[in-house]
């Protein structure tokens, strides 16, 4: 049973997470294991996880997108710009924001899949362009957004903030799609062997383009959600998010070479980083040390994973 548990990276990772949570609950018994703290952790990682779902899809197909953090900022700022300066009704502004997100994904996907531009170069260039766009439309930020827009991210259901529900819904829906539909399973075939997938009749280029569009749409939705939660659009939103999300997704079982990964892994990876971050805040670890500690823990977890895989392969 133990062997089976450690053979599956997701289960092994979940066990490590449970051990960390149990230890933190014992050490910080009055502050860590509370409903408020857990719902705050989930709330803080909700937008990251939604973006991570899109990144998981891309990594499964063997590619990635570095412009997701800027997409979060641009879509949030653009939607707010429409509502604040042009009094565009909330649903229409959101729709136009999501349209922008899909155009960003379409441009990335088309140039990478059809024109053969390297994904790192293309998405890096896009990252700069739309970060500039976010600064241009929002200046130093937009405050005073419509009440019904803020409702989207600030409401609660069963005492838990709505972004957490949206995150769970997103992970659930994409998990179902990836497991149960032929269309989404094709991403595994593409990630495993792109040439073989092409020869077997899968329209690889088109599928790749769809992947980028979906990833951008999820980043756009996360941007709108974060803006609504903050009640303000900040051009600095999502800075460094791309690396955070790629780390979470790799922690959650995906590989940079493609072909593997499961959606709950995206949630688990983000949850791991959220829990460690929260423990550091509660134990008052200074900001100087936080990145160093997080990096060391990530290396340790990946090493442990490799070690266990080797051990049980024999």
């Amino acid at each position: 049973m133990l062997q089976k548990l450690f053979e599956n990276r997701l289960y092994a990772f979940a066990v490590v997470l449970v051990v960390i949570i149990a230890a933190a609950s014992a050490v910080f018994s009055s502050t860590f294991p509370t409903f408020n703290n857990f719902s705050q952790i989930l709330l803080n990682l909700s937008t990251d996880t939604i973006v991570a779902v899109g990144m998981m899809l891309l990594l499964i197909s063997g590619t990635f997108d570095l412009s997701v953090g800027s997409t979060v900022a641009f879509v949030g700022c653009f939607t707010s710009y429409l509502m604040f300066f042009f009094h565009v009704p909330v649903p229409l502004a959101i729709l136009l924001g999501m349209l922008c997100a899909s155009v960003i994904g379409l441009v990335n996907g088309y140039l990478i899949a059809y024109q053969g531009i390297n994904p790192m170069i293309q998405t890096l260039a896009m990252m700069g362009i739309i970060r500039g766009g976010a600064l241009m439309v929002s200046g130093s930020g937009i405050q005073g957004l419509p009440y019904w827009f803020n409702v989207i991210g600030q409401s609660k259901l069963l005492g838990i903030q709505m972004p957490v529900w949206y995150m769970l819904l997103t992970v659930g829906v994409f998990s179902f799609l990836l497991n149960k539909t032929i269309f989404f399973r094709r991403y595994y075939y593409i990630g495993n062997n792109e040439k073989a997938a092409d020869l077997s009749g899968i329209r690889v280029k088109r599928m790749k383009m769809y992947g980028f569009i979906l990833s951008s749409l999820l980043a756009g939705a996360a941007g709108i959600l974060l803006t609504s939660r903050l009640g303000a659009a900040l051009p600095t939103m999502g800075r460094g998010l791309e690396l955070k999300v790629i780390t979470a997704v790799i922690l959650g079982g995906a590989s940079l070479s493609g072909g593997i990964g499961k959606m709950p892994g995206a949630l688990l990876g983000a949850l791991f980083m959220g829990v460690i971050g929260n423990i550091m805040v509660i134990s008052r670890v200074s900001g100087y040390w936080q990145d160093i500690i997080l990096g060391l823990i990530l290396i340790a977890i990946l090493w442990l994973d490799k070690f266990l895989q080797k051990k049980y392969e024999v």
Partner: protein
Amino acid sequence: MLRKPFLFVVCSFMLMVYSCELPSKNTETATPSVNEGTKDEAIKNEEYVMVTTAVTMPMYVHHDQAAFLKWGKARGVKVSVLGPADWDVSEQINTIEEVIGSKPSGLLINGTDPAIAGAINKAVAAGIPTVVYDSDIPDSKRNAFLGTDWYEIGKMQGEEIASLINGRGKVAYMGILGLNNMEAGFKGLLDVFKKYPGIEVVGKFDDKANVEEAAKITSDLLSAHPDIAAFAGFDSNSGPGIALAVKEAGRAGKIKITCVDWEPEHLALVKQGVIQMLAGQKRELFTWYGAQFLYDMAHKTNKLSGNDAKAGITDIPYSVNTGLLKITKENVDQFINH
């Protein structure tokens, strides 16, 4: 047959609608609950937390955080500095919200962006004394604010430049465009120049708080306007960037420079005669007195009524302008030796 699932869906939907809580349109004014215990042994267990963004920025480390840590040592209380390493306001908000759960004795928050108002209000609603420093968040329910009047920073630079160039010549200024405090500074500068018809403003530039960017803008301006007489810088990196380009052009001392902040590199440039004046903020006072306000609030040091919280009053100053330092070649040694 179909009725049962239908009823289930309807009931579930109604339950969800019933459980849904919308955010309130107007948050209630919070009445912070104040710690009653003032005994010495209890003080040691008190914790005051500073939450900023870009926690590793040298200006914050050398001035704000150093004074805060010194205050904690002097008072014999625990102090912690938290926040993301980069300029990430949403991460600062996350940190504030996570800290609230651990109920510190007081929260000292760097007023980085108006968007942090919601998190400040949550802290105040949770009964935690909360003071904002650096830039005010006027739409929040913070208990007090300490900082500098940026309009005065602009005026100080404007008056010094006008005097240095005898009221005639081309002037350019730069900083982070769009930030409320810097925009107020720019306005102060321009209001002074209105009194001098001989001064021509060639433009306002965004150096993105980056030394290289400030140097690049300056060298471009030196090429476009060889007769430019002065530069004014508004963020911490504007001065060193402008000075670098002016030195490289071999015009140090001929072109006049004023800027803000007084890090060792700024002071060295004043000493060398490359920068003529620094408008320094008394950042140490932001956090020393900010922390002291928190302490006084928690200990009800200056009780003004039978029950200040019930009476809806705060027993600390509402807003404090900490004032400015003027550093020139005449007095720079005082600050270098400090």
